[in-house]
Each structure stands twice: as C-alpha cells, then as structure tokens.
C-alpha cells in the first residue's frame, strides 16, 4: 500500500481542487449558526459553592452582559475588598456581540467564496480570536482577584481571589468552578468544525483519508478538552485535607491512603482502616484506582495491589489500623526489624 500512495493521493487532490466540498459547506453553515445562537446564551459560567450557600451561586457571562447572582456575589465580595462587577465597566460586552456577528459573516463568506485558502485564513483568525478572548478573560480574572481594597474588612495575608480560568479552585469558604456555558461550547464546537473542515480539505487529510484516522482525529480533539479529571494520585495536604471517612484532618501521612472514583472524584484517608471501612459502607462507589502512602517515604503513593502491608501493634496509626504499607518486602522487614515478617497483600486486607 505504501508504494502506491503518491499516485493515489495525487488523484484525489486533482479531484478536489481549490474549492471546498459541499460537506464542508454544510459543516461551516452549522458552525456559523452556532456562533449566532451563542449571542443569546451565556458563554461562560463560574459556580460558587460555600457551606452557607447550599443552593449555590452562579455567575453567568453573556456576550453582552454579566448575569446570574451577580448582585449577591458583589455583596459578598466587599468583605474581602474585591471590586463589584458591572456590565457597563467592560468594553468587552459592547464589542463581543459585533465580533461574534463578524465571525459568523466571515464563515458565511467562506461558503459563498468557496476557496480553501479563505477557509484557512478564517480558521486562523478564529483561533486568534479565541486565544485573545481567553487571555482577556484571564487578565480580567487576575485583576478581579488581585486588585483588592487595602481597607477591606477581611485581609488574609498572601491571599488572592482569582477565579480559575477553567476548572476548580477553593477561595476562602467558596469553591469556585469555572467552565464554558452553552455559548462557550457553541464557540468551541464552531472552532472544532473549522479545524475539522480545514483538515478535511487539506492535503494531509486527503492523503491519509480513511475511517480509522477520522476516528482518531475526533477522539483526539475530544480528549484535548476532556483531560480535566485527575488520573494519578493527588497530593494529600497535611493537616488541611480531612479523611473522607472519619472527617478528621490528616495529620500523619505515613498511614494515608487515597482513592479515585471512575468519575474522577478523589477520596483521601488518614488510615487504611478508614479506607476499608469506607469501601465496605459505600459499595456503590466505584474506585478506578486506590493508592496508599509508602510508610518509608510518605509523599510517594503505592498502587494498592503492589504494596506490601504489615499489620503490627508496633505501628501506631491515627485510627488504629496499625497497617503500614511498603514498596518492597525488604524495606518492610528492615523497618519492622524482623527478617521473617510476612507481608499481607491488599486482597487479604480487605
């Protein structure tokens, strides 16, 4: 197959020429419509959770205004000296609707002009627009979180309140969770459509065109965005993180353990005893991976199936599990000061 390749691909290029295909036109049409729809729905949202807000607070960023619980958030933020948010203070909310319309028209123009070159130009312009928008958003978040009134009632030294660009961050008693809203996703999908059509119309795609590749391409694009859940162990913050079972702060890492659910939620434990109890009492929780801290090097996590455990009263653990984990049998025997100590494996401990 490799030998016949050049000939085969040359034929396709000739076939497609410089004009975009009808399939591309349909894709672009949907992309442009997505942009227009995004004018009427929130682009981004920041969800705030605090103990005393069981109902949650939500800040919505529309192309032309700030919405959601903005008045409540403004009221709360004055304690820590953050600026209040007002739509009219942002030039962006005046410009953005026109820019979005402009880009939608650009995409329509590609359909009308039909030239691949023009498609590529529009894609690059759109990409720049996206980057500039995100940089601008970040810059605003930075200023919002850092420009604090020096006369504020609550000043926590060294504390800034910059919301996350995307993802989760704890800001004092509020957990802030920032993600694109419908409009943002429409935007992203427009970008993905543009990228897809650019690749689809390119020589590269024509040369490698087969079904397997398009699957890889699509999933590749998908994973770019999906890579937010933790996959590896998350460090345990000593005295700050609480045990998910006994709710006590984790004060001794040596006996710590951690488990991540299939949904990516992280549970931390101060004792293997707590981990086992948690598992037994919450059988509906599916763990994707479980780690234990290495007794000898507590900042290192060991996969629970590969760890060597020793149950001994010599080791006084926080919740009485008294079962340290080691990365090797040798280390276990060395620390236990017992050349014949027999380790336990995880399946026996459970």
């Amino acid at each position, binding site marked *: 197959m490799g030998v016949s390749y050049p000939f085969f691909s040359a034929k396709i290029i000739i076939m497609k020429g410089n004009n975009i295909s009808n399939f591309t036109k349909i894709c672009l049409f949907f992309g442009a419509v997505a942009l227009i729809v995004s004018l009427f729905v929130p682009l981004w949202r920041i969800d705030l959770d605090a103990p005393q807000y069981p109902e949650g607070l939500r800040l919505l960023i529309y192309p032309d205004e700030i919405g959601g619980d903005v008045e409540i958030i403004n009221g709360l933020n004055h304690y820590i000296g953050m600026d209040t948010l007002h739509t009219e203070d942002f030039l962006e909310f005046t410009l953005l609707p026109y820019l979005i319309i402009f880009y939608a028209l650009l995409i329509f123009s590609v359909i009308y002009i039909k030239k691949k070159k023009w498609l590529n130009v529009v894609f690059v312009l759109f990409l720049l627009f996206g980057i500039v928008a995100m940089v601008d958003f970040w810059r605003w978040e930075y200023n919002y979180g850092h420009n604090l009134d020096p006369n504020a*009632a609550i000043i926590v030294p060294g504390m800034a309140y910059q919301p996350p660009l995307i993802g989760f961050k704890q800001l004092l008693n509020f957990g802030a969770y920032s993600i694109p809203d419908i409009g943002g996703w429409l935007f992203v999908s427009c970008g993905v459509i543009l990228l897809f059509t650019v690749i689809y119309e390119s020589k590269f795609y024509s040369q490698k065109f087969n079904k397997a590749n398009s699957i890889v391409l699509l999933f590749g694009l998908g994973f770019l965005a999906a890579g937010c859940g933790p996959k590896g162990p998350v460090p345990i913050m000593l005295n700050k993180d609480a045990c998910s079972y006994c*709710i006590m*702060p984790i004060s001794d890492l040596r006996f710590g353990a951690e488990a991540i659910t299939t949904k990516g939620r992280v549970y931390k434990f101060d004792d293997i005893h707590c981990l086992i109890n948690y598992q037994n009492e919450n059988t509906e929780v599916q763990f994707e991976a479980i780690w234990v801290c290495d007794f000898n090097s507590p900042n290192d996590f060991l996969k629970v199936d590969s760890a060597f455990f020793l149950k001994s009263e010599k080791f006084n653990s926080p919740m009485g599990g008294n079962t340290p984990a080691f990365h090797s049998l040798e280390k276990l025997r060395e620390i236990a000061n017992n050349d014949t100590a027999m380790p336990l494996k995880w399946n026996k401990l459970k």
Partner: protein
Amino acid sequence: MYYQQQQTKQLYAIVFVITLLSITSCKPKNVANAISGDAAAKVYVAPGSHDEFYNFVSGGFSGQMSVYGLPSGRLLRVIPVFSVDPEKGWGYSEETKPMLNTSHGFVPWDDLHHTELSQTKGEINGKWVFANANNTPRLARVDLKTFRTAEIIELPNSGGNHSSPFGTENSEYIVAGTRFSVPADGAGGDVPIGSYKENFKGHISFVSVDQNSGEMNIAFQLKTPGVNFDLARCGRAKSHGWFFFSCYNTEQANTLLEVNASQKDKDFIMAVNWKKAEEYIKAGKGQKMDVRYAHNKYDEATHTATSEIETEVLVLDVAELKDICYFIPCPKSPHGCDVDPTGEYIVGSGKLAALIPVFSFDKLQKAIADKAFDGEFEGIPIIKYEAALHGEVKKPGLGPLHTEFDGKGNAYTSFFVSSEVVKWNIKDLTVIDRAPTFYSVGHLCIPGGNTTKPTPKYLIAYNKITKDRYLPTGPELAQSAQLYDISGDKMQLILDFPTIGEPHYAQAALASIIENNGQIKIFKIEDNKHPYVTKSEDDSKVVREGNKIHVYMSSIRSHFSPDNIEGVRMGDEVYFHVTNLEQDWDVPHGFAIKGADNAELLIIPGETQTLKWVPDRIGIFPMYCTDFCSALHQEMQGYVRVSPAGSNVPLTFSLGKNSTTPK
C-alpha cells in the same frame, strides 16, 4: 462516501457529548454530612420521660428566653423577659407593666442576646438565669423557682448592652459592657457625632447580686476609652478577681464601622482587676454621677412589680485609677473572649482573623509585674502581645467567633465563615476534629461550658442561617440549632432543632440541678398580699371609685365570681382583679373580655392579675376563661353591661342569680 460522512458526524456528536459530560463531572461535590445510624436513639426521649439537660436559649430579637430540653430539642417554655407577651399577659397586666418601664418610659420590646446561669464556686447553682437587653441597655434576672423574670435593671451611660450578662464564679457581679460608646448620660450628651474620640466613653457596669434574694444593684461603673465592647468572661479559679472583655473599633470610628473599625491588625482584650476596683471604692475613690435608670422588681407576695427610678451611680475612671485595666492586643476585631475551666487560658477570637490567639493568665501577671508594656491607649497600658501569649492556633478555620470548653483540656470554637465547629487542644494548640454546621454558626454551648466543671456530653451550635434545613415556610424561616454528641473523640451531629427569635448565646445545665432547686407548682392563696386579692368567692365585689371600677373577681373551676356585672358607664375605667382560687398543680385560668385593647390574663393558682378595660361603646360585653381548665371550661363565662355616661343603672354584680330587675 456519504455513508462515511454520516458516520463521521455521528462520531463527532458522540465525542462532543462525552467531552461535555467529562468536564462537568470534575466539579467537586460537597461531602454530604453522614448521620450515623445511632443518632435517632441518642436524641430519643421516650414519651413521659424527661430530658437530661435544661437549655436556656436567648431569643434574640424576640426579646424572650426559651427553655429547651436536651437531647430531644423540645421547646419547654418561652419565658417573657424584655418583650411583651400577650399569651401570658406579660407587659399587658397592670402587675407586669412596671417590669418593662425604663427611664424612657414603657418599652415593649428588646433584643436578648446572652444568658448566664448563676454560679457558686464556679459551678451552676440553679438559682437564677440572667439575660441582657441589647437595645435599651438592661439586665434581667429570671428566677428558676418560677421560670419568670423577677428583676430588670436599666444601665445608665450605656448604648447597647452587648457585653453582658457574664458573671463571676460566685455571681458576685454580673457585668454589662456597652457595645456603643456614648457620651455619659445627661446634658453633656449634645455633642457632634464626629467628636467621638474626645467625647465618647465606654462604661462597664458591675452589677452586684445578693446571694440570697438575688437582688441586683449597680455596684460601680468603669469609665473606659471610647471603643465597642463585645463579649466578656470572668476569670475563674486562679484568675478569680479578674474579668476579660473583648473590644473592637479601637480605631474609634463613628461611621461605616464595617470598614473603618476593621483597619487595625489588632484590637484589644481588656483585662479588668475588679478586686482592685473594690479597693479603690473602699478608699473612697469613685465619683458619684447623676443619672436616671429604672430598677424594676417583681414581688411574689403581692404578685406585683414595682418600678423605681434610681438617680446615682458610682463611676471609676480607669485612666486615672491605675492598675484596674490593661489592654492585651488581640488580632482583628475580637468577638468571643473565653476563659478555660482552669482560669489559666484566655481565648480571643478575632472574627476577621485566620488564627486564634490564646493568652496565659500567668504570663499576663508576669507581664504586668515586669511592666512589659507597648505604650498606652488613652491612659491604659497595652501589654506586649507576645508577653501575654500562650500561643496561636494556626489556620483553624475562617471567622472564629466563640469558644466553649469540655474540662478535658479541649476547646470548641465556632467558625462563622467556614461554617464549622473546630475542636482543639488548649495546651498544644493543635486541631483535633472539625464538624460542619448548617449554616454559619454563631454561639456554641456545652452544658457548664463556661464553668470550672463542664458536663461535656453535648455541644449545641446556634446557627445564623437556616436555608434548606427544614420544610420551607415562605421567606421567613425557623431559626436553627444543631446538637452534637461530643462524648467520644469525634463530634457527631445528632439533631437539628428550630428555635425562636435568633438564638445567640445559650447555657445548659443538668436537669437535676434545676428540677430540685425548690421550684414551685402553685402560689399559696393565704400568702397572697395583692392589694386587690379576692381570697374567697364571698369576698368578690365590684367597687366604684369615681370613674374607676375595681372588680374583685375570683376564678375557680368553672366560673368567675361575679359573672354578671351591670352599672358600668361610658367613660369608666374597669380593672378586673382576677384571683385564681385553685390550689392544685397546673390549673391556670385565663381571662379575656371583648374589645379589650391589650391582651388576656393568665392567672396561676393562688395568683392575682389585673386587666384594665376601657369600654368604647354601650352594650353587653362577654368575658370568658381562655385556658382550658376543666370539662366545663366553655361554661366559664360571663357578661358586663355598659350603659351611657350619666346612666342611672346601679352598679350591681352577681353570680348564680339575676340581681337586678330588668329595666
């Protein structure tokens, strides 16, 4: 080709949806608070069984004090204190109206923030519970033999009695520190508000309590720099003789305090050597000031309150009289100021601070002896922070407010902002446990948690925000308290219970201390010294004195005597003096008459209460018993005939016969 495109599009759609789902799923969810299975058994008090503890809870802006049983969280009684209560006739009957008298006249409402059980040798003695009025500054004493307000004393030179009613370990004094500094009462008060720094002063009253009668008197006031006093605790055991007051607004701002009183890194805890103050008084150093304040006492023999206006108070200027007061710097607007059961540790809670400073009484004494001072604040030495500091609890939570103690070396501090209770060790200052509250806890209470011998079985969190904890009741929700079992190493949430008003501080005591304190069940009719008492039906009568008509009325199951009254004319004032002749437990009678512009009477066996009634029209007015007293309660009723002014209908009264020929 077309088929392939279709597939590609489908694939695209699937990937897009997966992407969306996976991003939304990384949002961390709040850890749901697990209620363990034995919580129900722990709070269950079987029908007919009694609770283990009495809980005396401030009613906040209801102005009343509520009494709960713990662990059930059942409301047992609302004791009317500073606000009128038509249900009990409090503030409506002629006998109770004087209790709400002040130098401003009759004040029907106040804001009750804190409660304090009387103590002997640092332990709860079950005699009285004190309460503060936060708006029109007053102090009340509730007698635990009757669960009624027995005395209310107004506090001169004060504005907002918040730092109150905290007592010494033998209840020698109950203190009352002013929240608002104000110019002293009198003609000198007409000053520009902007002259706060020169003209506004804090006054802290030390109110003495007679150990037998309970009678309160303002022994002396300390005149202090103008700041806001917030809360206070007495020294106990080794630190007996001292009192500690938290204060904020040392910036001395008089406007926009939320910003202007939060500027300094440290405000103060004021340590007061009240034994020293007593010495100065003995040496004749105090200055008598002309003031006016009401002193109201309820007499159980006459069943009548009296209100006297007192005109003098002894004031000690702590800037001139040295060694009474010292300021200890305390981070960021201290709120709670709590002393542990040993009397050695003083816990300051800066409500805007991210740490809890713990001061040592021994170190404080040494710092004073060594003169380890850092200047003065309006003539009062400021002790060096480190010189008095035992240590700081680092990063305990956000917004520490109040601390209670278990007597086992642990402290429990409430955190408003992070909405949790944190248990920590006093000696080594380490955090041991934390439990979320729902939501934004203010005060905490452990039975005896402010005494030398706490009973650390439960901890109650009194929350400021309720939101979704109960069935919703429109925009106004029940207030919320939460009960934790603290008998183990870990706090365990076992009960939510709604409360009245806004609960601030509360105290609790073993039921046995209060149940067996000689509580009365009835008043003996032969001891009734009310001037208008009707000791038997034969004594019942109606007497005219000018336009005043006094009805000497008795009530017993199931009739009033008299129950037919004629000869009342327009322009008359009628006083129904109703005596409950019952001498059996739990047989109160009520009394109400149509058109009365005040309330009902609720009369306990052996008691006399008076309802004033000014008829507004001629006609027949029904009256009846409001408290279901017997099977024939509905028959317990009568009539009053009102005739025009100048009518010649004779004044007659009767029971069981038609006394007059119809006209």
